[in-house]
C-alpha cells in the first residue's frame, strides 16, 4: 500500500454503516476527514493533541482520538461517530440519559463523552462512580458539569441493564 504520485491515497472506510471511497492526502487527520470531507460535524475538535477528548470516535468499537489518527489509517475499518449512535426521533439510551439528567450545558464535549461511554458501559455495565470518573478522565468539560455527566452515565447504566 503506497500513496500515488500526487500523494493521494485511495481510502475506503465505513462510517456509521455507510461505505465511503475517497482519495485523501495522508496527512489528513481522521477528525478533519470526518468533518470536512464527510460533513459529519458532530465530532468536535478541541486541542488537536490528544488532551481534551472532544474528537473521540469509535474505531472498530473502541474509543480513540480522531485527531491522533490519520484518515488513511482507518482504511478498511469501521468508524462510528456521534451521528451513528442514535437519531433525533430515537436517541441512544445514553443520549436520552444525558438529556434527562442534564449531562450537558454547552454540548461541546458531549459527542466525545458519548463515544467514550458507549464501549465503557459495554465492558463495565454496572460501574461505580469512581469507575465512571476514571472512564471520562480523558474528556474535558469546561462548563464544569462533571457531576451531571456522572449522574447521566449512572442513569444510562441503570436503564440499559435493568
Amino acid at each position, binding site marked *: *500500500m*503506497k*500513496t500515488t504520485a500526487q*500523494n493521494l*491515497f485511495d481510502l475506503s472506510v465505513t462510517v456509521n454503516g455507510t461505505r465511503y471511497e475517497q482519495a485523501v*492526502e*495522508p*496527512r489528513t*487527520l481522521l477528525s*478533519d476527514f470526518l468533518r470536512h470531507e464527510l460533513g459529519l460535524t458532530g465530532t468536535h475538535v478541541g486541542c*488537536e*493533541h*490528544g488532551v481534551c*477528548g472532544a474528537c*473521540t470516535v469509535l*474505531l472498530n468499537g*473502541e*474509543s*480513540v*482520538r480522531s*485527531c*491522533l*489518527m*490519520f484518515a*488513511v*489509517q482507518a*482504511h478498511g475499518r469501521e468508524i462510528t461517530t456521534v451521528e451513528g449512535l442514535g437519531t433525533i426521533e430515537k436517541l441512544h439510551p445514553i443520549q436520552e440519559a444525558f438529556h434527562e439528567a442534564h449531562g450537558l450545558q454547552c454540548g461541546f464535549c458531549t459527542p466525545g463523552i458519548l463515544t*467514550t461511554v458507549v464501549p*465503557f458501559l459495554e465492558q463495565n455495565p454496572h460501574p461505580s462512580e469512581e469507575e465512571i470518573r*476514571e*472512564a471520562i*478522565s*480523558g*474528556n474535558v468539560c469546561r462548563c464544569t458539569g462533571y457531576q451531571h455527566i456522572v449522574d447521566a452515565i449512572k442513569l444510562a447504566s441503570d436503564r440499559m441493564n435493568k
Partner: protein
Amino acid sequence: MKPAPFEYYAPTTVEESLTLLAEHGYDAKVLAGGQSLIPMMNFRLVQPPILVDINNLPELAYINPDESGGLRLGTMTRHHQVETSPLVEERAPLIHSAMPRIAYPQIRSRGTFGGSLSHADPSAELPSLSVALDGKFRLRSRNGERWVPASEFFVGLLTTVMEPEELLVEVALPPLPPRSGWSLMEIARRPHDFAMIGIAAVVTIDKKGLCQQARMVFISAGERPMVAKKAAELLKGQAPTLQAFQAAAEVAISEEIDPSSDIHATAEFRRHLAKVLTQRALAQAFQRAVEERE
C-alpha cells in the same frame, strides 16, 4: 495545527517495513500508535518526509509467557491489551500497576508498548519501568537483529541507540527473582498527566531479610530514565530501615538525578518530591519482598 505533508507507506510484513526503513534511512519515521508522534506532527515539532505505518502488522501484537517465567511483548501490543492482560498482572505486576496511569482510556486503546519505549520520553512510565525490570529489547533490521538491555537503550531526550534502519520488534521482561518486591510512586497534578516526578523501585532481599539488590529508576528526573546506582549500592546488605531509605534517597536526589524546572514544578521541588517518594517506594517495595518471602 496540521501536519506537514509526508509520503505514507503501510507495509503488511515486517520484512517490507525493514526494507522501507533501510531504503529511506533518516527520512523515514515509524508510526506505531501515534499518540506521541501525531501530536508532535500536529504542532509541526517534527516533519518527517516519510511515514512507515506499522499498524498493519498484527504479528507484532502479542503478550506471551516465556520459559524463564518472564514475558515477551510484541512491539505493537496496545496499552489497553497490556492493562487487561491477566498474564501481565501475574508476571509483571509493576507494569500492570502502571498501565491505568498512562494517559487516558482513548489513548490506551491506540498507544503501543514498543512505541512508548521507542519514543523515549523521560516523563513516560514504560521506559523507566523497563529499566527497573531489567528488560531487553529486540531490534531488527534488514541485516539481522540484536538484543539491547533497557539500561543501555535510552541515551538522551527522545533518543535511543536505535539506528534509523532498525525497528524495535519485541520486549523481553525477565521474572523478578524470589523474595522481590516493587513499587511505583508518582506525583502528578492531575491523575493520568505526565508525572512531575516518579520512581520505580525493585528490590530483592536475602534469606535474613537484608537487601540483596535494589534498583531505583526515576521518571521526569532527567533526560532519560535516571538510574540511582550509588543509592542502590548503599542499600546492599542493609536492613530495610527508615534510616537506610533516607540515606539512599539523599544520595539519589543529590548525586543521581537531574530534574529541570518548568511551568509544572521547579527542579528544587522535584528533588524534594523525589526524596519523599524514594523513601515511600523503598518502604513499599521491601514490604512486598518480605510478604513474598513469607
